[in-house]
C-alpha cells in the first residue's frame, strides 16, 4: 500500500541507485508509481523532482571529492539545456514514438564499451583542439583502486552533439536521459566510468530543471507525492555519494548495465504500445 512513508522509503533506494549509476532515478520510480495506482502523467511530472534531488544530493559529495568535473559539466549543459528546450517545444508537434526506439538502440551501444570500462582506464594519447582549448581534463583519487586517475576528454564537439540528443530526448519524453549521457561521455568522450556517472549526475539536475515550468503549468505536481519522494531520493543520493568512490568500477558498471537492460526493455515496450 503506497502512502507517504512507504514512498519515502522506496525513494531512498531509488536515490541510492540513481546516484551510483548517473541516471536520474525517475525512470525507475515512475513505472512503480504508475503500477501502484498513481496516474501516469502525475507520476512523470513528480519524477522531475526525484531527478533534481538525486542530482543535488549526490553532487555535493562528487564535486567536493573532485570526481565530477565542473568544467566538463558546464560545457555539456549548454547542449543538454538547448536540447531540452527544443525537445519540449517539438513534442507539441511531433509524436515521440520513434524516439523510444532511437533511445533503446542508442542505449544498446553502451554495451560496446563494456569490456573497456571494466578494465583499467587509459587516457587517450591525443586530444582534439576543442577539448584542449576548453581545458577538459582532470584527475581524481580513486579510493577503490587506491590510485590517482588522470584523464583527458576527447571529441568535445561530438560529445556536445550527443548531449544535444540527450537533451532532446529528455525534453520530448519527460525523462532525465542520464543513461544516455553516461554512454556519450564514456564511449564518445572517452571519460573514466566514475567521472562519467558523477558528471552525468551533476548535469541531469539541470536538464530536469529546464522542464520545471512545463510541469508547474500542467498542474500535475502533487505535494503529497513530491515531499516524500524528495526526502527519500535526497537521503539515498547523499548515501550513494559517500559510497561511490569506495566501489570498484566493475561493480558500478555491472549495476549500470542491469539498469540499462531494464531501460531498453522499458523503452521498446513504450515505443510498441505508443505505435
Amino acid at each position, binding site marked *: 500500500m*503506497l*502512502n*507517504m*512513508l512507504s*514512498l*519515502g522509503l522506496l525513494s531512498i533506494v531509488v536515490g541510492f541507485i540513481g546516484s551510483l549509476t548517473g541516471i536520474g532515478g525517475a525512470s525507475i520510480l515512475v513505472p512503480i508509481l504508475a503500477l501502484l495506482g*498513481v496516474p501516469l502523467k502525475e507520476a512523470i511530472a513528480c519524477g522531475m*523532482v526525484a531527478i*533534481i*534531488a538525486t542530482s*543535488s*544530493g549526490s*553532487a*555535493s*559529495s562528487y*564535486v*567536493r571529492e*573532485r570526481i565530477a568535473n*565542473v*568544467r566538463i559539466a*558546464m560545457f555539456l*549543459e*549548454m547542449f543538454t*539545456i538547448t536540447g*531540452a*528546450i527544443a525537445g*519540449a517545444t517539438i513534442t507539441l508537434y511531433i509524436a515521440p514514438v520513434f524516439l523510444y526506439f532511437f533511445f533503446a538502440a542508442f542505449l544498446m551501444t553502451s554495451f560496446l564499451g563494456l569490456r573497456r570500462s571494466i578494465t583499467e582506464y587509459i*587516457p587517450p594519447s591525443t586530444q582534439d583542439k576543442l577539448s584542449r*582549448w*576548453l*581545458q577538459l*581534463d*582532470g*584527475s581524481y583519487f580513486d579510493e577503490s583502486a587506491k590510485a590517482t586517475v*588522470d584523464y*583527458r576528454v576527447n571529441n568535445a564537439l561530438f560529445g556536445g552533439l550527443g548531449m544535444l540528443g540527450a537533451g532532446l530526448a529528455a525534453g520530448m519524453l519527460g525523462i532525465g536521459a542520464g543513461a544516455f549521457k553516461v554512454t556519450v561521455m564514456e564511449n564518445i568522450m572517452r571519460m573514466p566510468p566514475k567521472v562519467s556517472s558523477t558528471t552525468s549526475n551533476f548535469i541531469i539536475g*539541470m536538464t530536469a*530543471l*529546464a*522542464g*520545471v*515550468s*512545463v510541469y*508547474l*503549468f500542467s*498542474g*500535475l*505536481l*502533487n*505535494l*503529497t*507525492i*513530491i*515531499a*516524500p519522494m*524528495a*526526502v527519500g531520493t*535526497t*537521503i539515498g543520493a*547523499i548515501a550513494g555519494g559517500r559510497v561511490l568512490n569506495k566501489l570498484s568500477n566493475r561493480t558500478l558498471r555491472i549495476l549500470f548495465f542491469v539498469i540499462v537492460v531494464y531501460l531498453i526493455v522499458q523503452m521498446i515496450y513504450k515505443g510498441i504500445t505508443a505505435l
Partner: protein
Amino acid sequence: MTLKKTIDKDSGLEKAISYLLIIGVVLSVLLEIAGIIILSRDLHSLAIRESSSVFIQEHDFFRFIYNFLRTGHGDGAGIWLMTAGLIILILTPFLRVILSFFYFALKKDRKYVFITAFVLLALTLSLLLH
C-alpha cells in the same frame, strides 16, 4: 605532466558548489519532513491525496515563488512547508549556475564566463516558459 595542469585550478569553486548543494538539499529535506509530519497530523493519515489543495499549478517558476511569498499559508502549515521545500530544491541547482558564473567572472576566464552565461540564460528562459 600536461595532464595535471588544471587539477587544483577550480578547488575554490568546487568547495563553494559542494556547500551550496548540501545546504540546499538539507534545508529542503527538513522543510519537507516538517510538512509531511504536520499535514499527516492534521489529516490523521499518511495517505497520498488527490484533492485539489495538494496540487500546484502556476504559470511559471518565477510566478510560483512570487505567489508563494505573497499569499502565505492559506492551505495550512503542512502544505506551506512542503511548497517551501520544493522551491528551495528547485532553486538550489539554479543558484549553482549563478555561483559558477560569478566564479569564472572573478577569475576572468572568458571561455567559461561565456559558457556559464549561456547556461544561465537558457535556464532562465526555460523557467519563464511553459
